[in-house]
């Protein structure tokens, strides 16, 4: 049994706790960066080519976090993303926040009850999120007397196609960059490779 000389030595449990906290804060930082990048893309891509504005990048990030089954983070990111985009938009401030928060919760709710880990299942989830987000956003504008400047069905269809196609690819990218599970998987693969090498060299000896 190892001897404890002083109180400054960390116990294994406490050490594991600090590691988890630092992992969580690292993951939160990554999400904040991804969210900021998605908002910047949303603000700037319309100037490059107008059809690119049909891709809802912040919604893709919201869907990704909701699929991770982290309710608090999904709801907060949904509200923040919506409010920031609303601030520079001609629509009502809060409408985007409302739509994205509700969408995030619906996806979180579904993800906690149905297994949505399969990458193929993400396609209908993204499509449903896009439709729900658009419908709620336009509903509130119509109710409060601010009708959108473009036809609803046409715009929603374009947005659905663009967000689903680009979003599916973006979710793969986010999986590789942000998800801890994929990082762990990579780590285990390296360890396995190293272990195999070392056992091989032992056998040769």
């Amino acid at each position, binding site marked *: 049994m190892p001897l404890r000389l002083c109180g400054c030595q960390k116990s294994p449990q406490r050490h594991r706790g600090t590691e988890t906290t630092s992992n969580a804060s690292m993951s939160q930082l990554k999400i904040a960066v991804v969210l900021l990048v998605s908002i910047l893309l949303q*603000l700037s891509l319309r100037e490059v080519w107008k059809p690119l504005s049909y891709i809802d990048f912040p919604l893709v990030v919201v869907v990704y976090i909701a699929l991770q089954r982290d309710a608090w983070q999904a709801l907060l990111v949904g509200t923040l993303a919506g409010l920031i985009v609303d601030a520079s938009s001609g629509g009502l*401030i809060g409408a985007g926040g409302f739509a994205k928060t509700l969408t995030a919760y619906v996806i979180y709710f579904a993800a906690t009850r149905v297994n949505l880990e399969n990458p193929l299942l993400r396609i209908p989830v993204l499509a449903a999120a896009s439709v729900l987000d658009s419908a709620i956003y336009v509903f509130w504008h119509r109710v409060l007397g601010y009708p959108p400047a473009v036809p609803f069905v046409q715009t929603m269809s374009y947005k659905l196609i663009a967000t689903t196609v680009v979003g599916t690819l973006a979710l793969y990218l986010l999986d590789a960059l942000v998800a801890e599970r994929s990082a762990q998987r990579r780590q285990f693969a390296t360890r396995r490779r190293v272990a195999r090498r070392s056992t091989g060299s032992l056998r040769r000896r």
Partner: protein
Amino acid sequence: MASVRTQKEIRQRAPIWLVTLLVTNLVIMAVDARDADGRQKILRVWTQTFASPLQNASSKASGATSGFFQQIWNFRGTAQENEQLKERLTQVETELHAARQAAAENERLKALLNLNEQSQIQSVPARVIARDPSVWFNTITINRGSTSGVEVNMPVVTAGGIVGRIITVGPWSSQVMLITDEKAGAGAVVGQLGESGALGSVRGRADLGVSLIEMRYVSGLEKVEVGDYVMTTGQDGIYPPGLNVGRVVDVKHGTATQAHQILIQPGAQLDHLEEVAVLLYHPPRRSTPEQTPNIERPKR
């Protein structure tokens, strides 16, 4: 540890967080939707102030990216463009000569009529730094705000024609509602002001997008043809009279009891706006009659 929440706790608390955030958004929305009687909305001023650095950054980034690709694209047709430009230069020189003569004549006539330069409207040049990030609206953001003298409801124009009006003013940036918006509108006339009686109002329509606007209430007895120019009348209290709105591209002729249905192509290229000018125009105040029945007078 008390601070670490279990999955069960998160699941239990999620509906409470959801309701809290939804109510917060709803309150913000209700405050923003409240009609401010043509005045500035405080919430909008704050959001505009905080959003403008982000918009500036994104504008610079996208400008650099699109500029790079544009240069590569432009390089392909340089020789052909050079020939076209030479031909155009010859034409322009001839036109310039005619224009100089006209300007000299104009000066002489002005002197005769005793008009002075002070009557002209001052303008502030501005650059478009952002377009609406949501696909549902068609607003633009410009890099001039209250520090440059810009105020709510001031008209925004380009050399081609009117663009829209200022709806939100921050210290260093402003938001412009395009003339193609359903909530935008302007008093207009087909043909020259004072010569034509084809008066009406122009406004956007959701199904027409940004390429066309609709002109309403033009009497079916007035003569309107495709290709006619449409000018502002100044009756809306926003745009000064005599500004170009656009050109008539489609007319469904009305009758004595039915108005014409007119579609106009805006003179300003609203899809590719880069530089605009804000007219520091204050419309003349209309005097309200003292004895107006059934109208509540605002307290001074």
